[in-house]
């Protein structure tokens, strides 16, 4: 092609990919406009954030309503979607590289692609339309025999224009190497013809034209060889384009740059005019390079490509293909799913210029959909969503799939939407631009629920009677997303007996007001106000080992609470607020009991145990400030938790309430998860062994009612003992160490724990530790294994020296 022997060349290599992907998914090519109708849904949720996620998916969606089945299906859907996604992305974004990529100086290879849907007649449309036609024909299995003698070579233009030929085989013949290349050759992917396909002469000619203009070949020819069965064997013989060797490589970002319009070259130009023309073209290209922004490609890849250039000597089309693949691979590996190499320019100079469109976001669109998928005006205010989006997803950043996933997770955590899609699509108005669409389906704002249950309580004589049937249940309502600002009110009432709800009525009413500092303020503070009640068995009134039965004391709390939570990170936060509550202590039969009971040696019960309340009446009213600061920088390394967690909790009495309670009750918990071995991170890699060190100090200065005393013993205090079995004290110290050793998919652990009252048991009024014959301190050690959420552990109680087996849910630390 001597006409293109200009000093610099352009080459559009994107063709290959689109074709190859079409080959892999022939069914989709039946659609005449794959650009807009192709869509993939990658199901994902916050749990799918593992680094193993394939970064190739251009469209993410979450259905957070039914998380449990989703969790199971994630790996599968990810895998399948990943394959589909890579396909969809390439098809969708391929037109970016179109639009006169063949500019002035080049081969005009990718030229005339047009912007996908709009500018017709382009190269791309031809490409897409041809298989569409084929597909149509495939529905009609008939094909015409060539009607010629077997084993003769027919030139393409000698074929009949009215016949539909069946190609039984397609051969590629490299004229330079003088060999037939196999299907594994990269050039093979450039041809859309497939063996067994049925094509007309026009189609074959178009294909040839395509190949000739793509810039990869200096010369391409097609010839058919007749076969006895009436089919054709097609041989495509080609000469690969080569340019002079280069020793420099430059990658430029041409995203959002207006593509240069090719100026028609007048065939009647004189040599001088031609020279002028080329020179102006060259100048234009220089200017283009200068104006282009630097691209993100790191030096390491640069060097790699330089090495490739150096090794190769001459720059060949194959080499350019390789370079393109390498560059695109880096982008795609890093999550820049919309990045494309659109052109190679400046060929035949010492420098290869690789033009990349990275996928700049030109617009961010937030869309609400109703259940049927129609676009509607949403209730949620957009700043609520905008603040959840990573900066990298906003206008003028490069689209990255990881940022998309992050956005998906963040929006999902709002719990306002039943379906979330983050969807990049090419911007038709800006060449190489990406519009990020966020499509959201809102959940119902108001929700009410009634659940009932009947419980049959044994009546007199142990037999259930009709009167002993108790209707119970829960009534709950929720008003979410008030004013579109994610404020919510929720309430619930639970009772086990609707006839006598005063017996055990649990209620909760909560108002949540996020974005206290304004929805556009990056400070993230949430106000919560709630009305609550609860009933718990007090571990203070528990017997030590060998003490048969201590009459239990129930602690009922009811009150109001208002607090402000400031979230610093996902895990670290600071909460402070005011609590006003009424605490009532009751015995087994729900009678208010101001003193704990104890069993006398004679077997009788005397109600002169430790006082249960501050006021001595069994009912305390108190108001205090509550603050909690959590610093948590733990993270998961291959599934093992590593990092540090510190929690400080403070209840500061204000002297308001029964007997003017003034106290400072504080707890400091420090837990360190120390990674004992450096491991490679990645899916399926074994987690490192971890040493967990834990310390918990609790103390109180001032008025300390028994229900606020710190208790020792229990699964979250000192394992191997019952709740409160070791004592109840004013100050406590708990120390624990646990060594976790990974075994297959889970881990085994050994632990040792100690809890001590620091001699402060007697500083609790009535000394419940001593009254109920408890030690006040104790140690335990043991070992266990984790099976999913369940821990099975054998713990030895060091006070008595006996061991026992426990099954527990959740984590100790």
């Amino acid at each position, binding site marked *: 092609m001597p006409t293109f022997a200009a000093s610099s060349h352009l080459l559009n290599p994107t063709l290959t990919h689109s074709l190859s992907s079409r080959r892999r998914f022939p069914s989709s090519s039946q659609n005449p406009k794959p650009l807009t109708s192709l869509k993939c849904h990658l199901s994902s949720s916050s749990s799918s954030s593992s680094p193993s996620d394939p970064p190739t998916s251009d469209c993410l969606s979450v259905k957070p309503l039914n998380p449990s089945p989703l969790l199971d299906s994630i790996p599968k859907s990810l895998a399948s979607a990943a394959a589909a996604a890579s396909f969809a992305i390439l098809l969708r974004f391929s037109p970016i590289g179109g639009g006169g990529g063949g500019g002035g100086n080049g081969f005009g290879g990718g030229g005339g692609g047009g912007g996908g849907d709009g500018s017709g007649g382009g190269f791309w449309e031809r490409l897409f339309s041809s298989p569409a036609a084929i597909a149509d024909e495939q529905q009609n299995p008939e094909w015409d025999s060539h009607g010629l003698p077997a084993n003769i070579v027919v030139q393409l233009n000698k074929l009949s224009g009215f016949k539909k030929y069946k190609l039984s085989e397609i051969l590629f013949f490299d004229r330079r190497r003088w060999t037939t290349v196999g299907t594994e050759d990269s050039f093979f992917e450039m041809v859309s013809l497939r063996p067994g396909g049925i094509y007309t002469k026009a189609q074959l000619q178009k294909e040839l034209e395509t190949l000739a203009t793509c810039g990869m070949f200096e010369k391409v020819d097609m010839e058919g060889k007749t076969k006895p069965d009436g089919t054709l064997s097609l041989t495509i013989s080609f000469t690969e384009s080569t340019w002079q060797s280069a020793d420099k490589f430059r990658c430029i970002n041409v995203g959002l740059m207006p593509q240069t319009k090719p100026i028609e070259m007048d065939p009647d130009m004189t040599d001088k005019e031609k020279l002028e023309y080329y020179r102006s073209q060259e100048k234009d290209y220089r200017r283009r390079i200068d104006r282009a922004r630097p691209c993100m490609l790191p030096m390491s890849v640069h060097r790699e490509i330089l090495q490739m250039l150096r090794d190769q000597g001459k720059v060949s089309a194959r080499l350019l293909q390789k370079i393109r693949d390498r560059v695109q691979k880096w982008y795609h590996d890093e999550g820049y799913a919309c990045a494309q190499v659109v052109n190679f320019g400046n060929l035949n100079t010492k420098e290869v210029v690789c033009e990349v469109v990275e996928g700049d976001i030109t617009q961010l669109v937030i869309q609400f959909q109703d259940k049927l998928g129609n676009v509607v005006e949403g209730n949620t205010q957009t700043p609520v969503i905008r603040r959840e989006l990573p900066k990298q997803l906003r206008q003028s*950043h490069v689209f990255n799939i990881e940022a998309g996933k992050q956005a998906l997770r963040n929006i999902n955590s709002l719990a306002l939407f039943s379906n979330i899609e983050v969807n990049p699509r090419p911007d038709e108005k800006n060449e190489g631009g990406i519009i990020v669409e966020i499509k959201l389906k809102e959940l119902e704002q108001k929700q009410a629920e009634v659940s009932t249950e009947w419980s049959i309580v044994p009546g007199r004589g142990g037999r259930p009677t009709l009167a002993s049937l108790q209707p119970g249940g829960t009534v709950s309502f929720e008003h979410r997303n008030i004013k579109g600002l994610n404020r919510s009110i929720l309430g619930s009432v639970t009772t086990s007996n609707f006839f006598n709800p005063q017996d055990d009525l649990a209620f909760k009413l909560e108002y949540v007001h996020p974005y206290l500092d304004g929805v556009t303020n990056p400070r993230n503070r949430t106000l919560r106000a709630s009305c609550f009640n609860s009933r718990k068995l007090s571990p203070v009134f528990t017997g030590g080992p060998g003490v048969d039965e201590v009459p239990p004391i129930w602690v009922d709390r009811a009150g109001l609470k208002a607090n402000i939570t400031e979230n*610093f990170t996902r895990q670290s936060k600071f909460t402070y607020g005011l609590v006003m509550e009424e605490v009532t202590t009751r015995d087994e039969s729900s009678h208010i009991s101001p003193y704990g009971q104890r069993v006398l040696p004679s077997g009788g019960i005397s109600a002169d145990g430790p006082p249960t309340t501050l006021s001595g009446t069994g009912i305390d009213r108190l108001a205090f400030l509550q603050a909690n600061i959590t610093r948590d920088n733990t993270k998961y390394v291959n599934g093992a938790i590593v990092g540090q967690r510190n929690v400080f909790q403070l209840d500061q009495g204000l002297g308001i309430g029964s007997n003017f309670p003034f106290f400072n009750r504080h707890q400091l918990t420090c837990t360190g998860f120390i990674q004992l071995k450096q491991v490679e991170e990645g899916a399926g890699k074994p987690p490192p062994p971890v040493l967990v060190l834990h310390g918990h100090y609790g103390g109180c200065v001032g008025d300390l009612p028994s229900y606020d005393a710190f208790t020792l013993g229990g699964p979250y205090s000192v394992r191997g003992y019952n709740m409160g079995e070791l004592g109840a004290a004013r100050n406590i110290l708990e120390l624990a160490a646990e060594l976790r050793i990974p075994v297959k998919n889970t881990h085994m652990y050994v632990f040792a724990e100690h809890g001590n009252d620091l001699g402060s048991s007697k500083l609790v009024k009535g000394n419940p530790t001593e009254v109920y014959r408890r030690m006040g301190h104790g140690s335990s050690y043991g070992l266990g294994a984790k099976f999913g959420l369940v821990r099975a552990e054998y713990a030895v109680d060091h006070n008595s020296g006996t061991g026992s087996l426990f099954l527990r849910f959740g984590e100790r630390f």
Partner: protein
Amino acid sequence: MASQLIREWTGIQQFPAATQTKLLELLGKLKQENVSTLTILVMGKGGIGKSSTVNSIIGERAVAVSAFQSEIPRPVMVSRSTAGFTLNVIDTPGLIEGGYVNDQTLENIKRFLVNKTIDILLYVDRLDTYRVDNLDKQVVKAVTESFGKEIWKRALVVLTHAQLLPPDGLEYDVFFTGRSEALLKVVRSGAKIKKQDTWGDAIPVALVENSGRCNKNENIEKVLPCGTAWIPNLVKTITEVALNGSKPILVNKKLIEGPNPDRRWKEFIPLVFAFQYFFIIKPLQRAIKNDMARETRPAWELRDTGLSSRKF
């Protein structure tokens, strides 16, 4: 029981005339010092003759005594008055049960004693036990914990069953000194009386023999093997202790329950709060800020290449 009528001390008439004279003389001495009431608390292990001692002092069978079992499940106060002088003797059940100090009993005693003033503590043990053991120490400890160390300033160690033949032909005096020394040592260590507190060495020891077979002297007074009449001697020692200048122990709620732990350090709460704010909450906040700064961000976040102020 506290409201029990104070009866006339008729038992004093039962004593031999010589004893009576001595007793009245001692009581007169007390009255001179403006002491018109004397409350004596009797404590000790079980079955060592506490009640018998009480009966001996009063001179009548005021408290039921049984040879084989503890008769009184709860403390009993016996009050007698004569010539304007009131003597209260509080008998208590034995503190030891099943090898341990019975907290229940101690608790009962304490409750019984609320709002009473104890002038004298009689810590009773037997003379004819050869050894002291940990149990003795525990009893002393329990008494100290209940009423404070100061009670030992007004205490007498009383050794019952004083009429005995010392083993291995020891001299009676030597045996008595050995036994009382051993016991006092236990008392001093159990009550955590420091070496430099000289009063610890001055706890007097009195001997008692309640048995009816007790030897008598010419005045039909009960006498010890050494020849002293023990009742006048005991009362004399009591009088001496009562007048030794130390304060009687007033048992009130505070003493029993110890200082109110809720009041301890209460005035420092604002300081504690300030400390927590500046030295726990603030550093934690700083640590969180640090964490946020050091958080490992994914490459795409760092590589952020915003086209600053680019318009479309």
